[in-house]
């Protein structure tokens, strides 16, 4: 039962993440990235198997019946990396807004509010500004 629920939840999460990734609003795109990477984390946890107790072993106790702790260690690493990259993506979004005056992906690609005066800006003519 848990397997089906988790599989469905993962499907929904990936779908929502993909949907948000395809929005024009940069903030939603960053949300989409965050959701996709978090669903990858959930997926990673389920890869260790869903049966078994918490992998906590008492002093002198055996390790029988515990679920795989390795995937949990992997997920911890992935969460930390995801946290850092999401924070960076948000800061970058703010910077994009400062530079372009918009967070609409289509407007940014077209040169944005500031870039509109200088059509060559998107060509990378002068990078020293």
């Amino acid at each position, binding site marked *: 039962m848990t397997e089906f629920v988790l599989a469905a939840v993962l499907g929904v999460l990936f779908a929502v993440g993909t949907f948000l990734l395809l929005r024009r609003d940069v903030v939603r795109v960053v949300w989409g990235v965050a959701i996709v990477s978090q669903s*990858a984390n959930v997926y*990673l946890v389920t*890869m260790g198997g869903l049966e078994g107790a918490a992998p906590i072993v008492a002093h002198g106790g055996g390790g029988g019946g515990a679920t795989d702790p390795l995937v949990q260690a992997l997920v911890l*690493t992935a969460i930390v990396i995801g946290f850092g990259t999401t924070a960076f993506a948000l800061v*970058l979004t703010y910077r994009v807004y400062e*530079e*372009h005056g918009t967070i609409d992906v289509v407007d*940014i690609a077209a040169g*944005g509010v500031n870039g509109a005066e200088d059509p060559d800006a998107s060509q*990378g003519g002068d990078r020293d500004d």
Partner: protein
Amino acid sequence: MTEQLVVAPMLVALVTAVGTLLARDRLRLSGWLSLAGGVAYLVAVAALFRAVVPVAVLDGADASTAVLAYQLSGWPAPYGITLVADALSAFMLAIAAVVSLPVLAFAVRYVDEYGQRLSFHPLYHFLMLGVSGAFLTGDLFNLFVWFEVLLMASYVLVVFYGGPQHTSAALKYVVLNLVGGAFMLVAVGGLYATMGTLNMADMARRLADPGRYGVDPVPVLGLTAVLFAVFALKVGLVPFQFWVPSAYRAAPAPVAAVLAGVVKKVGVYAIVRVYFTVFGGGRVGTELALPGFAGESFLSYFGPIMLVLAAASILLGGLGAVGQDDLDGLLAYSSIGQIGFVVLPLAVGATAVDPTVRRLAVAAALVYALNHAVAKALLFLVSGALLDAVGTVDLRELGGVARVDPTLAAGFFLGALALVGIPPLSGFFGKLLVFDVAVRGGSDIALGLGLGGAILTIVYASLAWNRGFWGEPTEAVRRGTPGPALVAIVALLAVAVLAIGVGFDPVFEAAGAAADAALARGEYVDAVDPAEVSG
């Protein structure tokens, strides 16, 4: 004792990164510290290279290379994380060290004071740390971690100037790579669930004998295909190339040089290591009969895919470069095409049955990767020096650089000829080997593609030369001359391009040894985890 050498490049990069971070308020000190770190990195890589590849191998003698395995914290494989240095890793590290030091020296003079004070040096060395880690790790999840380390540094370096086009380029680059990272995590997790291990040597062992370890190869093949998409994104193969032109245009010239010269080679390394060493022994049997694929081994499935991606990259990169009006854009599209040339022999080698052809194919890809790394870094530095002097790299405004600054123009000329493949430059041997592999592998498609791509390379290289460097100097070009230090570093790299071509024999022997190491699955597994050899 020699095992400890394996961590040396990573330690040097890490210490330099932290040191320059601490000294960032003192501009001169951090600059010198950074350069010293670059030199130390080169020394560490050279020491590791010597320990792995004996000098006799470079002379063409029949000596064997070593595989050094370092178990981090003394945890034995497959439980701990293993760092492995074999001839393939050593070859890639050598590319990284040879390219990164001149680029760093260029950056010290090129990147403005504010930028250097801000964060340039620590980021550069963290980038090199990630690159070295990715080359050395023997654990698939650890490879993901090192990818993230180098990507995190490269995100900031791409957006370094923070202007409108830099932020929009970085946004594209960051979002694509974050999604790629999530997919890599999915692939790694799935592989762990199906194979029960993440240690690459252990994976190779289990895949070679799936019945004994209870591994079902069919889902493994599917998951490795997901992983391949991630690696293709890192190297910028079509259809995953969207981030390349804008990111290379936005990044400062030394960063573009190191992204094209070193970071892309991490993806090349990952493809060779994972598909030829680790999953190369996998077979799926006949129950999985997909249309258009022949053979049972994993590589026979990836060969056609690589061929299609390489073909699309060569054509799109070449045609895109012809249509570019600015030098950086031209170089960026050119590097998409050149990566196609690196993957083309791999595609032929993957489907080849003859082991000598496969070995030659991997060696050809490595030689081509080395040539592209040095030549493209040289060209990006020329573009940077021009931007510094003239204030633009738009080919419509450039012209006659050869008259005003012959050394810089000569640097561009050598780099462009190396891309085209004129003897005795390094590119000639790269192209020659690619064609040799195509002929021996009996792949007419690859041969035709290689010829078409070579013609496109000639077209865009001569276009860039004619428009930017030949003829009467324009007003903009007359106005400024680049700093002598920048020109000297360009000249140094140009000499390196020449030297690799003239003294090609040891380079070819090293590439051959690296190809042997990439295909010697048994030795790799034994070096990492010898405990189970008898069992």
